């Protein structure tokens, strides 16, 4: 039934408008959390992956997916959470990183940071307000699990940095 009415691309398109609840200027698709859509006779299964294991937004995202699809007439929607392969900030699109910067959050650097890095000794994080690299880490943990707190020595503004994962 479903497969006759909607293609996989249709579903992706519908879902591409769902914003990340914590960074509403970016969609869950741009974040790389939307992994797959499987259409079968039983219905539509949407595969998502969490950015962080304890991400409290996952429940909300699941509800948003179900609501969006049912409002558009897609029946029998199931949302499945998978952990493998583990989400990485490298899956974020360049557009997403750009939108994030304009929103005031410094986007993640490339995730080559798999080694144990000494606390505070990090790559130069650019201030999203003035682009200065004269910035300093305040705390590795910010308002949400995915962000760190920085301050800019140039424009004196504090800002958040989306940690690389």
């Amino acid at each position, binding site marked *: 039934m479903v497969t006759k009415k909607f293609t996989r691309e249709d579903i992706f398109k519908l879902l591409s408008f769902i914003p990340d609840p914590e960074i509403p200027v970016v969609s869950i698709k741009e974040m790389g959390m939307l992994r797959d859509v499987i259409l079968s006779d039983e219905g539509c299964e949407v595969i998502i992956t969490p950015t962080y294991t304890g991400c409290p937004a996952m429940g909300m995202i699941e509800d948003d997916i179900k609501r969006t699809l049912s409002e558009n007439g897609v029946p029998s929607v199931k949302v499945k959470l998978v*952990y493998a392969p583990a989400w990485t900030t490298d899956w974020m699109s360049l557009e997403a990183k750009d939108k994030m910067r304009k929103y005031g959050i410094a986007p993640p650097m490339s995730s080559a940071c798999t080694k144990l890095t000494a606390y505070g000794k990090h790559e130069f994080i650019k201030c999203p307000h003035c682009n200065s690299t004269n910035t300093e880490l305040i705390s590795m943990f910010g308002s949400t699990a995915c962000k760190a707190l920085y301050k800019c020595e140039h424009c004196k503004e504090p800002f958040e940095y989306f940690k690389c994962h």
Partner: protein
Amino acid sequence: MNKQKAIFNYALRLGDNSLVLGHRLAELCSKGPILEEDLALTNMALDHIGRAQAFLGYAAQVEGKNKTADDLAYKRAERSFYNNLIMELPDKDFAATIARQLLVSSFEYFLYTELMKSKDETIAAISAKAVKEVRYHLAHSSDWTCRLGEGTAVSHEKMQNALNDLWMFTGELFEMNDADAILIKEGIAIDLNSIKQQWLEHVNGVILEATLTLPSSDFMQTGSRKGIHTEYLGHILSEMQYLQRAYPTAQW
């Protein structure tokens, strides 16, 4: 014990460690020494509770009794919990919190790095996710150990005392039982002896950098592999499980 039972037992242990430590860290919400620390500790609590949900969810699935992660977290009594004793100890002061974080997050770092290679896909996947988070926890506790160790005479003494107090709970982290033996053969679990040296070297490195001394006592506490706990776990559970006990079918 068959393989299924062993995986259940193993996932339960990983889940319980994350759950109980997550609960302890969450208790520090609004009690951090500075606002940034408050955020850091509660963020780490969230990482642990998220990991607990993943492992307990998997344990429930393997057990096949139609239970959920919540059932396992909220409807078991102390003797059915398999978290290491160090996770349930109360936070006497900030130095105790940091000492536990240092000892545990370095253990978790080496454990989950190895478990990423587990032949059990789910354990490998959750571990891959965990290791990314633990990296930040370890950097955090290593940094604070140095700050307190090299700080004032008082902070140095408190940090040293905290490490001395917790040392006898570290032996248990590396204990194994029947479940480990079965799963090591299958390439699912790791031999904990294989990471003990790395763990010790890392911890010792941080302690030396912090101008502190590695505790030397050999006496080690034991019990959690058999579900035997300190008196503190009961108090944790009475708070954590209160709502589900009082209103058995309550849902969020």
